[in-house]
């Protein structure tokens, strides 16, 4: 480890050379630098925001007056569906976690890059490919048309014979891969790469918000993935997950979708909370009030959000006895939100607020969030919810939340960090004008929707007759939409002009407290010439940052302990690589083949992906085993949630059937699969010993133990695959809902066993220290999974 010997100014050119990307377009295509990836995310999501906004303008123009024909019913269905999908999956999430998270989190915690730089680049290219995939469907007259929540049976083959719902299901799975990679990366970065001294009680509240959103994404997305896989299989393979006549259930779609969908709302707004807690201290020059409660409230709101999903299903007819669970949690999730609102307001009142443009947007956000939040509480009352369900009242509520509470802070954040990205100051007066136009426009747009909703106007109708009392409200909403659009144009025009003509900003024009303001504007590729040492959550207000580590030998980054940020080790980070964009392209081919039902070609493209992954891991950087283990833990957590969704589906379908298995299918064997699962479970022991031997450098012992584990695993896998094939001769996957979930569940388990086998074989071949613990950990997960799957299939018959 190098320490400061020369003045930092003389060290910087060396760091500059080592961290610089390749020049030109090639540099952008192969970059792994978090700031460049953040900028790529920013421009891409902005483009998609333009697309989603244009769709909104078409909708509002259509609804401006009764009996309008700007759009036909089919086009309107596609436009409102795409608007919802684009704004949620392709604008707000990637703008917050992808653009703001990527650019700011490493800077705020004093790191030089994300924990997994190549995975970071992969997440962007996958995101871009998934966006193109969705819009290619629209351009080829196969746009999805079943709303952003894609309820069955409307999206099943009999009701949607086009490829629109296939594009929908595959685009969301594809996009989910990107979000899962980003969230895993952010979590490990925040837990393991914090600057020395930045213990959990000194981490900025902005980071707590992004930590909460990342955990939310990691555990919520698998439910959506499972749902979309079922939908794709029902439409293209002939399974019956949502076919009531064959034992399936339409409510299954809703349960899985809203298990993802409600936490998703908090995932959208919690990063905005983080932006607010970064802007308020800078413009009031005081610490945020009740830091510990704000930090935990950000995590709590997402966590409780996982327990409220069925409040979207109050009109589906599920028993009252089930609904009460969700009403209680829905009522209580208000408390952590309220804690934050009180903290922001108290900080503003007791500080010295300077109402510059960023703080104006935060004040507007608080107003909009309280407005949308209060109407959200009204849905706790089940009878009220049932009255306004599927009316414009709901549209008003969630647009106050999603536009008011998520997009306002994003705009505020754009102004706030503009000097950091560009080194220029924006023009203040046009900034304030843009705020007031947007604030007036959004309230004119969304508030009448409450009234028109209470008057009974249903959502998702492409037009309406005159004489319903809705005309003037709709005209006002459309005027509000155009006013909002003008405000947004003023905002971006101001930022573009400021970029070229703004005055130099210096490193910290706001006297802000967090670490990103401690480096130059724009920051150098290596972020900090000297790794800072932190003594509070507001390090820049503590005076001299201190720090002794320069780390100018290669791409070095200190790794810290998760809780207290003590220095653990210095690691070498990967640098620019073409592999992420190649892997994303191969994945795009997989999804392209799937949507065309070219399954053999898709399998070949999967092999291509596997070959790229082999190249990826052929000569990996010297990753810290602790960081690798955290990465594997994130993968396991996501996978375990996905498989838990499959197991829950199995039990859910079982509950709906008086007898099981249905359709005259024979009961599965009990004894042999359980015994074999037990034998497989026993292989965890040699795997554990092998990983320990690898870490201690006992190569021969490690290889012998790995060989033993591999032998048993391969035997199990061969038996199970043979049994699977034999059963397919007795009843196939298309017989009924039981056969569908049975084969999908077992197939998913066998797939994981195969991946575990390949990883064990790879470890046997390489005996790599940094990977040993992670692979052993994955194998333990596979064993738990197998016990869970086999246990469920057998237990259901015993019960």
């Amino acid at each position: 480890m190098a320490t400061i010997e020369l003045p930092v100014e003389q060290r910087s050119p060396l760091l500059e050379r080592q961290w610089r990307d390749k020049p030109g377009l090639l540099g952008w295509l192969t970059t792994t630098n978090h700031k460049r990836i953040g900028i790529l995310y920013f421009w891409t999501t902005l483009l998609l925001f333009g697309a989603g906004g244009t769709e909104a303008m078409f909708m509002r123009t259509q609804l401006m007056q009764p009996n309008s024909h700007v759009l036909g019913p089919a086009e309107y269905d596609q436009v409102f569906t795409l608007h919802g999908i684009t704004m949620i999956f392709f604008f707000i999430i990637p703008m917050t976690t992808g653009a703001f998270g990527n650019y700011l989190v490493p800077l705020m915690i004093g790191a030089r890059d994300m924990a997994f730089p190549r995975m970071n680049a992969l997440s962007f290219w996958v995101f871009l490919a998934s966006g193109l995939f969705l819009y290619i469907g629209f351009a080829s007259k196969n746009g999805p048309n079943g709303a952003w929540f894609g309820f069955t049976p409307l999206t099943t083959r009999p009701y949607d014979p086009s490829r629109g719902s296939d594009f929908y299901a595959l685009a969301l799975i594809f996009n989910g891969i990107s979000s899962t990679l980003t969230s895993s990366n952010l979590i490990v970065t925040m837990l393991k790469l914090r600057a020395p001294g930045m213990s959990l009680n000194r981490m900025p509240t902005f980071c707590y918000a992004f930590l909460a959103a990342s955990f939310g994404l990691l555990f919520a997305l698998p439910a959506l993935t499972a749902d979309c896989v079922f939908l794709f299989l029902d439409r293209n393979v002939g399974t019956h997950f949502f076919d009531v006549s064959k034992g399936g259930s339409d409510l299954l779609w809703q349960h899985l979708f809203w298990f993802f969908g409600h936490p998703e709302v908090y995932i959208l707004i919690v990063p905005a909370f983080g932006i607010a807690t970064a802007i308020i201290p800078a413009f009031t020059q005081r610490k945020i009030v009740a830091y510990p409660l704000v930090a935990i409230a950000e995590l709590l709101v997402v966590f409780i959000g996982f327990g409220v999903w069925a409040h979207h299903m109050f009109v589906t007819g599920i028993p009252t006895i089930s609904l009460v669970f969700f009403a209680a949690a829905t009522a209580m999730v208000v408390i952590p939100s309220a804690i934050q609102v009180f903290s922001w307001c108290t900080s503003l009142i007791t500080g010295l607020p300077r109402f510059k443009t960023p703080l104006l947007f935060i004040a507007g956000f608080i107003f909009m969030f309280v407005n949308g939040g209060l109407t959200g509480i009204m849905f706790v009352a089940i009878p009220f919810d049932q009255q306004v369900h599927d009316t414009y009242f709901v549209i008003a509520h969630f647009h106050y939340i999603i536009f008011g509470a998520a997009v306002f802070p994003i705009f505020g954040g754009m102004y706030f960090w503009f000097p950091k990205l560009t080194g220029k100051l924006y023009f203040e007066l046009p900034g304030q004008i843009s705020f007031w136009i947007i604030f007036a426009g959004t309230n004119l747009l969304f508030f009448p929707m409450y009234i028109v909703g209470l008057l009974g106007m249903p959502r998702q109708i492409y037009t309406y007759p005159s004489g319903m009392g809705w005309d003037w409200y709709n005209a006002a909403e459309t005027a509000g939409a155009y006013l909002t659009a003008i405000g947004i144009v003023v905002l971006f025009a101001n930022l573009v002009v400021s970029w070229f003509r703004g005055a130099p900003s210096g490193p910290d024009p706001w006297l802000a407290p967090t670490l990103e303001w401690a480096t130059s504007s724009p920051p150098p590729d290596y972020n900090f010439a000297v790794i800072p040492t932190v003594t509070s959550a507001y390090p820049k207000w503590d005076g001299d940052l201190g720090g002794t580590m320069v780390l100018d030998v290669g791409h070095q980054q200190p790794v810290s302990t998760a809780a207290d940020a003590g220095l653990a080790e210095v690691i070498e980070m990967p640098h620019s690589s073409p592999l992420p964009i190649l892997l994303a392209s191969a994945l795009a081919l997989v999804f392209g083949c799937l949507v065309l039902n070219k399954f053999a070609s898709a399998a070949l493209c999967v092999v291509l992906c596997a070959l790229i992954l082999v190249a990826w891991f052929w000569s990996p950087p010297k990753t810290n085993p602790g960081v690798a283990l955290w990465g594997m833990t994130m993968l396991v957590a996501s996978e375990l949630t996905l498989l838990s969704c499959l197991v829950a589906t199995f039990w859910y379908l079982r509950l709906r059937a008086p007898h099981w298995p249905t359709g005259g299918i024979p009961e599965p064997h009990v004894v042999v699969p359980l015994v074999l699962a037990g034998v497989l479970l026993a292989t965890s022991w040699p795997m554990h010993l092998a990983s320990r031997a690898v870490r201690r450098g006992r190569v021969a012992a490690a290889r012998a133990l790995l060989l033993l584990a591999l032998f048993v695993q391969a035997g199990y896998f061969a038996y199970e695959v043979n049994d699977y094939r034999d059963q397919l001769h007795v009843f196939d996957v298309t017989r009924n809902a039981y056969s569908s979930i049975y084969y999908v569940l077992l197939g998913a388990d066998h797939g994981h066993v195969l991946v575990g086998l390949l990883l064990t074989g790879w470890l046997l071949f390489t005996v790599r220290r940094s990977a040993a613990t992670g692979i052993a950990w994955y194998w333990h997960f596979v064993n738990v999974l197998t016990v869970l799957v086999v246990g469920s299939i057998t237990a259901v018959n015993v019960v």
Partner: protein
Amino acid sequence: MRALPWIGLFVAPAAWFGQHAVGQAIAQASCSAANLSWGVSNRTWQIVLLVVASVLILAAEAAAVAAFRATEPMSYESPPPAGRARLIAIAAMTTNLIYLVIVLLDGIASIVDIQCRQG
């Protein structure tokens, strides 16, 4: 002693999530077609879940209070590990009460109202 703040922070959410997931699954099962042969007693299970979850949350609250008192002269801004332990204790003491209220609301409602009528 070092584990107290973590116990205070993590036990209550686990207890709530367990009660929530298992409780609503049992509620659904008790009103399902499969229950014609299973005979699941909703009320018994909900009482058990309510008691177990409440006891766990109260234990977690006690752990959080103990951790808070053990770090008494320190502030949550103090250097780790004491400062970090105090931050977690403050967070846990607050959130555990929220979990307790949800568990009580869930449990009492599902014991009092055991009808399988459509919602």
